[in-house]
């Protein structure tokens, strides 16, 4: 087992503990709330509301200047150095994507019925000590009622929801699936019609399918297929696999 693998597995194993232990630790703030905004309970008064609006307005402006002046980049650089000198990409599941595929699959089998990485913290999957781009509200008031579309981020889909979604998708893909046998035996139908139907079904089925379709397309050597023939007026003389 390589050091990288050991480090990755250790990170996953310890992440929930680290996350819980740091749950009360605030992320690095960019702007701090004025002490005058620290309110006691009850409905916010008109003055509280105006204070909040003024705070948000000022904070956004300050943050933009902080970014435009390059200070954010310097702070980000310092943070990256603290993290080991490498800027990491995170997935929605709260783990570093620098995993071997096999590790992910093994991990999934252990913790989840479905072969997908388990969500550790859906709303904010970053590690607790990352630089923060959001800013909270440390008053005791909430100035906006809860919004369903945001709170639903936390929900794991139920079996019923998955079933209903699967039913709907099956209607979307019905034309392509019901003619798969014809596509199998007829190259002309497959290339001329069926593949276009597949693309249309993906387009109609939502963001995940559109993204996957684009991903599949760009996995093929898109620059060879599209850019080069366009600019140089010719296709490659050899086949793509050969190329």
């Amino acid at each position: 087992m390589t050091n990288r693998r050991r480090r990755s597995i250790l990170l996953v194993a310890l992440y929930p503990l680290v996350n819980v232990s740091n749950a009360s630790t605030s992320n690095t703030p960019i702007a701090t709330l004025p002490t005058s905004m620290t309110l006691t309970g009850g409905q916010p008064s008109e003055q509280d509301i105006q204070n909040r609006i003024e705070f948000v307005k000022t904070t956004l402006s300050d943050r933009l200047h902080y970014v435009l002046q390059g200070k954010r980049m310097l702070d980000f650089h310092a943070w990256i150095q603290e993290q080991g000198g490498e800027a990491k990409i995170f997935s929605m599941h709260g783990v570093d994507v620098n995993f071997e595929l096999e590790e992910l699959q093994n991990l999934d089998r252990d913790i989840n019925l479905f072969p997908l990485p388990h969500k550790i913290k859906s709303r904010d999957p970053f590690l607790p000590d990352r630089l923060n781009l959001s800013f909270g509200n440390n008053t005791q008031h909430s100035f906006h009622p809860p919004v369903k579309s945001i709170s639903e981020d936390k929900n794991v889909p139920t079996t019923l929801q998955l079933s209903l979604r699967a039913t709907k998708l099956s209607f979307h893909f019905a034309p392509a699936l019901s003619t798969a046998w014809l596509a199998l035996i007829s190259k002309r139908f497959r290339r001329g019609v069926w593949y276009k139907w597949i693309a249309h079904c993906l387009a109609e089925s939502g963001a995940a399918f559109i993204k996957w379709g684009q991903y599949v397309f760009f996995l093929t050597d898109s620059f060879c297929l599209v850019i080069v023939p366009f600019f140089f007026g010719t296709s490659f003389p050899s086949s793509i696999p050969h190329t």
Partner: protein
Amino acid sequence: MFPSALCDALSNLHNDAPAHPWDFTQTQVESSLDIPPGSLFQVFKAFDEQPLASGSVAQVHRAQLHSGEVIAAKVRHPRVSQLIEMDFRLMALAAAAVGWLPAMRTVKDSVYQFSHAMAAQAHLNVEGHHLEVLNYNFRNWDTVRFPRPFYASSSVILETFEEGRIVTGILDDFDSLARSMNLQGSDVIPVEEAKFIVTTGVSLYLKMLLLDNLMVSTIFQILVIYIFSYLPSLAFPVSSPLLESYIYRHLFM
């Protein structure tokens, strides 16, 4: 990996998704910033109700702060996160079911890789972080830049406004120009511009994919959105749509 004819068909998947209504955008921004309903225009001097562009995950509005700076506000579509979560679970099940077929052996791996690395797009705070990483990783590249976020929540990103054009739009314009002259696209695009787009684009793509570990499906959109403004002005007469400044402001949409 997949038949080239299928990939050709998939190349037509575009991002011109229907835009969600203005009310939804307003509610999302106000809720994310935790300001009272109806107070959006007290925080922003202006906020365009019509989006500049709409993709499959989110749409982008132009806005202006009271301090005068024009910014971009990216707002996630309704239920996108929930739908993506469900769809990836179903896709994984389907991929596992068909994975035993020889022709579909790679589908399961593809779905795994894709869902893990790209589903982050449903959470705009993740994307905000990735934008910062990209800006950091490309800080020494003079000809490439990305929008710089200064606020991000799971459903809203506020970021600097960068002007540019989608690369496929540029190619289409040259193609149209060439057709009107009975030529090919390669005959009308200046060699320096073509060389710049191809070399910068390939380098950018490979760095993101191989070094930065960031898979981007809509690479064509990214390529020249941010590098086009560095191109020298085109030194030959073209129709006005070619030079018309279509401001396109989004990343990974």
